[in-house]
């Protein structure tokens, strides 16, 4: 059974269909990519899957359960995590606290014990901090453990978002342009990180403009254009699809971010 199934999904903004009658499925345990020209509806799709937007029509199911009507937080509880194209960092907190928020679903958040700082809460706090530290090391942020988030450079913040998402131990991780704005060295690091994450058993879905990265890591690619499915398959199949080539010729050639 597929992990994520999207059926006849449609989203309209004032008459404009950003996603139009789209259906596809994401299998467990692989790296998937969603590509397409600007305005193809990729980020809108992520917003629909995570519940930031409510679809105009259609159905989204995770593990066979219909999640179309669930709010974002409830979807997170079912194992969906994401990062953002425009960074959504908690700039009012330290780096490690950002990651600790990612642990939210695994914490004891009962109000009264928290207010009284009961031993159980303090224990949970400590273990959350430990886990957050591990994750920051995992994504390569060892040197930023004590930093305030607003003092960190862009590249580090992109990793911080990934660490925060991983802290929730997701079954499905959506990465929205993880390599955008990064230099080749940083992009290569992200490439390795994505593979490491996938290897640990998390299903990764990538929206990305960097075709070298996409073609290199993806087991499966979905191509969108005007909110509709243009093509689907392995890197090789997509690259040789004449429709995809035509769609991309309209703007820059594939491979340019």
């Amino acid at each position, binding site marked *: 059974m597929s992990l994520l199934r999207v059926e006849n999904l449609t989203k309209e903004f004032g008459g404009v269909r950003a996603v139009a009658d789209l259906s596809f499925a994401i299998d467990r345990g692989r790296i998937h990519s969603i590509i397409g020209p600007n305005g193809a509806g990729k980020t809108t799709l992520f917003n629909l899957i995570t519940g930031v937007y409510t679809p105009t029509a259609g159905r989204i199911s995770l593990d066979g359960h219909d999640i179309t009507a669930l709010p974002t*937080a409830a979807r997170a509880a079912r194992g969906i995590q994401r990062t953002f194209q425009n960074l959504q960092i*908690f700039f009012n907190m330290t780096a490690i606290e950002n990651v600790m928020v990612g642990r*939210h679903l695994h914490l004891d958040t009962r109000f009264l014990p928290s207010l*009284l700082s009961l031993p159980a809460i303090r224990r949970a706090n400590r273990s959350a901090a430990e886990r957050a530290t591990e994750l920051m090391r995992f994504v390569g942020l060892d040197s930023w453990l004590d930093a305030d988030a*607003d003092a960190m450079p862009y590249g580090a913040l992109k990793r911080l978002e990934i660490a925060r998402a991983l802290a929730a131990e997701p079954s499905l991780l959506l990465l929205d342009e993880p390599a955008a704005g990064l230099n080749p060295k940083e992009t290569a690091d992200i490439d390795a990180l994505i593979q490491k994450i996938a290897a640990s058993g998390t299903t990764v879905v990538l929206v990305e403009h960097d075709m070298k990265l996409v073609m290199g890591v993806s087991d499966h690619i979905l191509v969108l254009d005007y909110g509709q499915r243009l093509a689907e398959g392995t890197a090789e199949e997509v690259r040789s699809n004449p429709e995809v080539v035509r769609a991309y010729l309209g703007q820059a050639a594939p491979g340019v971010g």
Partner: protein
Amino acid sequence: MKRLPLGTGGLLALAAIVVFLPFVLPNNFYFDVAVKTGLNAIVCIGLNLLIGYAGQISLGHAGFFALGAYSSAILTARYGWPAPLAMLTGAVGVGLIAFVVARPILRLKGHYLAMATLGLGIIVAIVINREIALTGGPDGMTVPAFSIGGWRAVGAQTWYWIVGGALLLAVWLSLNLIDSGVGRALRALHGSEVAAATAGVDIPRYKTLVFVVSAVFASLAGSLFAHADRFLTPVEAGFLRSIEFVTMVVLGGMASTFGGVVGAAILTVLPQLLAGFHDYKHLAFGAIMIGVMIFMPKGLVPSLAMLLRRRPRAGAGP
């Protein structure tokens, strides 16, 4: 975590101030000012959770403060309830009201949220002004002494210790909450609602929670205020009182528990200092509000703390 020992240190320092301040207060008038400072500080600690930490706005918290105060006053004076029960009933009632209005209101953002809370506060003030049979109207009403069993809490010095204890308790609770998963969730929804929701934070639940908590803090402080001063007027519910609370929070420092305390102390003592200036006091008060916001937008405590820490910081945000 680094914050915990710092918070504990601050709490101990505050406790020391509470214990040693009486040795330098020359007479009961100063004790009275200290009591008011403490009660305002408790409101500010709660309000700071809402404004400073969770990033919401309330221009109507004087309404909750006054509801707590008048609940205590009316239930004890008109119905003869025991003071602790009246205080508790007030807090529960205010909590319920806050709970009911929180969800629809906290969907609003920015100026719309400001207007809605402002409107609520003013409605409370108008009702208190008009329901003269119950509240005494604009003339105010006298409040019986706070008593448990045979013991009556009267006199500025007695109240100094009661309020001092309550303040330390409030600071301790606030520090606990902030340093828990709940507190981080609140700060997260300030930083980015969508990211917080993605991390699994139930946004409406947490907004409601913090609104209710801050309202109950205000209500309890209001109840104590009513009994400490033994006299209550609708001015306590007014728009300017709400603004005063918010200004205390911002002046002392947003997202800083001790900031709320410092802001409350300054803005409670300041009018007493300005009392001698008569006609010019409004002029001076307005100028101070503007000046602080321009030159110390982050508030006193965070600005000073930053100077002391000298931690390198990049520009705020992208």
